[in-house]
């Protein structure tokens, strides 16, 4: 009888352990990726770009100095503010950067999150908190995301002859 209870207990512990592991990323805010600027510093903020310009987003695996273990992949989303929808939704990127262009004038937000490489549905929180469903909140949420303002490139090299 005691033996039976031991097995039940062991099974319960194993289940709890698995369940806990699956929730780690969602609950562990320190594992949220941190976007970087071109100098490699942590940065959430505003980028001013023009249509068709190559834009590179890069990030570190974590927002703090927890050692990188290398078993994560990353999701990147870009939302169009005017259209209130996700226009770029890249999943399970096995890299720490993402290159893209935005062909239309407008306001966009970019965010990133980490997921387990062996279970890409088990992910950290997004690096900032907007959602297409709830629209973008203007203040207090851009902790670690990018606003991207995309304008039309002006003519250049003007002159007279």
């Amino acid at each position, binding site marked *: 009888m005691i033996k039976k209870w031991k097995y039940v207990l062991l099974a319960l512990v194993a289940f709890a352990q698995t369940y806990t592991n699956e929730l780690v990323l969602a609950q562990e805010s320190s594992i949220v990726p941190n976007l970087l600027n071109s100098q490699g510093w942590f940065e959430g903020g505003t980028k001013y770009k*023009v*249509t*068709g*310009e190559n834009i590179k987003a890069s990030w570190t695996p974590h927002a703090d100095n927890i050692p990188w273990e290398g078993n994560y992949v990353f999701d990147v989303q870009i939302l169009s503010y005017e259209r209130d929808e996700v226009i770029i939704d890249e999943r399970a990127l096995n890299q720490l950067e993402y290159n893209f262009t935005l*062909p*239309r*004038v407008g306001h966009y937000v970019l965010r990133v999150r980490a997921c387990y490489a062996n279970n890409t549905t088990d992910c950290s929180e997004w690096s900032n908190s907007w959602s297409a469903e709830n629209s973008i909140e203007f203040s207090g949420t851009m902790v670690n995301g990018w606003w991207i303002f995309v*304008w*039309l*490139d*002006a*003519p*250049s*090299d*003007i*002159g*007279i*002859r």
Partner: protein
Amino acid sequence: MARVGTKVFFWTESSAADVEEYRVYVEPEANPVNYSSPYISAGKVTEVDLGELANQGFAPLVDAEGDFNLGVSALDTAGNESDIAVKPSVPLDFVAPVPPTGLGVR
């Protein structure tokens, strides 16, 4: 009617793929160029002959003589307009000389 000479205003096109036209702005030197300035829609080109615009009656250039601020912007198919690239203090002279007088034959 007198005709004025050629003065070509040119630029390098915007990198945007959906540019539909360029606007050319003209202001006297004392006034900065902005989106309220007089302009002409030049089409999808990379130069315009200001003298020809004067001949066609573009008001800021008719009988223009002095220094002017010139600007050019790009418009895309959705109607978005870029910043205005400005060339300040461009000397223009679209006043034709008084025609000769005292004509005769001998």
